[in-house]
């Protein structure tokens, strides 16, 4: 099992969700997060005073998948979140030792 985590632009999140459903992903955990990378922040002006706002809003999604589904899931995310401009985000994959479904107590592959 693998944990796929992706940080994407907020306005691409709906496209990503649709693309993931198309490859059979039935659920995920989504958080509103903020951060910055090469995109840097932006400038806001209040009564003439310019403020550099370092943090940019992003959507982080987390999905636990079977090893065999990892490539399809990652491709679905990168394909749907892509705009070609700075700030499109990142996807990374880490191994997962065990998973338990709270409702039934099922473990590992049965719980994914």
């Amino acid at each position, binding site marked *: 099992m693998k944990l796929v985590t992706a940080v994407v632009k907020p306005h691409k999140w709906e496209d990503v969700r649709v693309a993931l459903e198309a490859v059979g992903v039935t659920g995920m955990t989504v958080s509103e997060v903020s951060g910055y990378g090469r995109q840097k922040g932006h400038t*806001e*002006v*209040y*009564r*003439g*005073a*310019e*403020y*550099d*706002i370092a943090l940019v809003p992003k959507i982080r999604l987390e999905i636990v998948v079977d090893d065999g589904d990892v490539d399809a899931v990652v491709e679905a995310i990168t394909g749907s979140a892509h705009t070609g401009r700075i700030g499109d985000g990142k996807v990374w994959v880490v191994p997962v030792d065990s998973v338990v479904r709270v409702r039934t107590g099922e473990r590992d592959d049965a719980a994914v």
Partner: protein
Amino acid sequence: MSLLSEVPTVHALSVATSQLDSGDTAWLLAASALVLLMAPGLALFYGGLVRSKSVLNMMMMTFGALAAICILWVLVGYSLAFGDDVQSGLIGDPTQYAGLGNLMSADANGDSTVPLILFAVFQGLFCVITGALVSGAIADRARFGAWMVFVSVWTLVVYAPVAHWVFDFSSGDHTGGWLANRVGLVDFAGGTAVEICSGASALALALVIGPRIGFGKEPMRPHNLTLVMLGAGLLWFGWFGFNAGSALGANQTAAVVFTTTLLAGAAGSLGWLILERVRYGHATSLGAASGLVAGLVAITPSCGSLSPVGSIVMGFVAGVVCALAVGLKYRFGYDDSLDVVGVHLVGGLVGTFGIGLLATAAAPTGVDGLFYGGGVDQLGRQLLGGGVVLAYAFVLSGIIGFIIQKTMGFRIDEEHEVTGIDQILHAETAYDLHATSGARSETSGVLTQGGLGA
């Protein structure tokens, strides 16, 4: 009044005991309620401008001032401002109307068309909004108790005398204040007593108390501009009571003043927006709200002295000038956090001095300014009045603030300021927006009662 004089015989009996006009009284009752609405309007305006960790304290400074000033005004403030002059037009007799008990009977009204007790309350609400305005200079960092002491002493030592000078007109055997009667200052609704006075007091307090931690280095963004827009709208609404109510009657003067108040707010908003669009590249919502207030500030003294077109010019100039003036605090390093100086002091000066230029005798106050062939006389009176009120409010507020700073202390601890004044001083959080905040564990599911910090 004109109707009464046409049919004197019919009304002779009632006129002998009271001259009250129900239209005038009804309007002043409504106008007083409108001025009261400016307090929560200001609380929203100011509250939206600070960071989310101090919005409650910001609003509490207005609500605290409202509570304290209403009571102090009735007990002694009104007498200091509108009692018979004690010395040289400087201060009223503090005992004359103390407690307002002797204004309960209609006999006290003399030849006024509105009850004097209503006039007293209307004027008290002016003091409330003036005091509350000052708090904008000390956002995020003032002890609430110290603020309450300041605004109470300030009501009696700063506002009441200035109101006496500016608003207390002599009539019959009543002698009023020196600026209104001896100098001939024109200040219809408080460009000096309210706007310059609050701005100068704010500047003094900002200097005494010092800048916020991180001022000029960290971004201190307004946390909720929708509150600011709503607050600005409520202020405008209330301002009609403030200005048109100052006509003290439902009459032609009130209608003219209503018109100039509407136009100056609109023009102020446009002026600020155009300036910032040209200078910084964006027309902002905060600019629209701030320009609106700047235009209203400038029309406050001049609302009875200008033509409708004159009020557009006045509002627009105030919007542009104030949009430039709010940058001064960064250049000189004083942390007037919410720009009380840039908007109210500067806007008040624009409006007060502008009367000397733009006033037309066709307007209710009947004075011509320089541009209408009136020469420089009125301008001189306006410069004197505005300058004196500025200096008095600045010096006295500075002294009161300094004494409080040295005795009880005015600022909260650094650590508390960084953590957030709402949590530390008021034991509250303004916004509770998290799904987890309603969680209760099964094992310890009893709320602690009265045991904060146990």
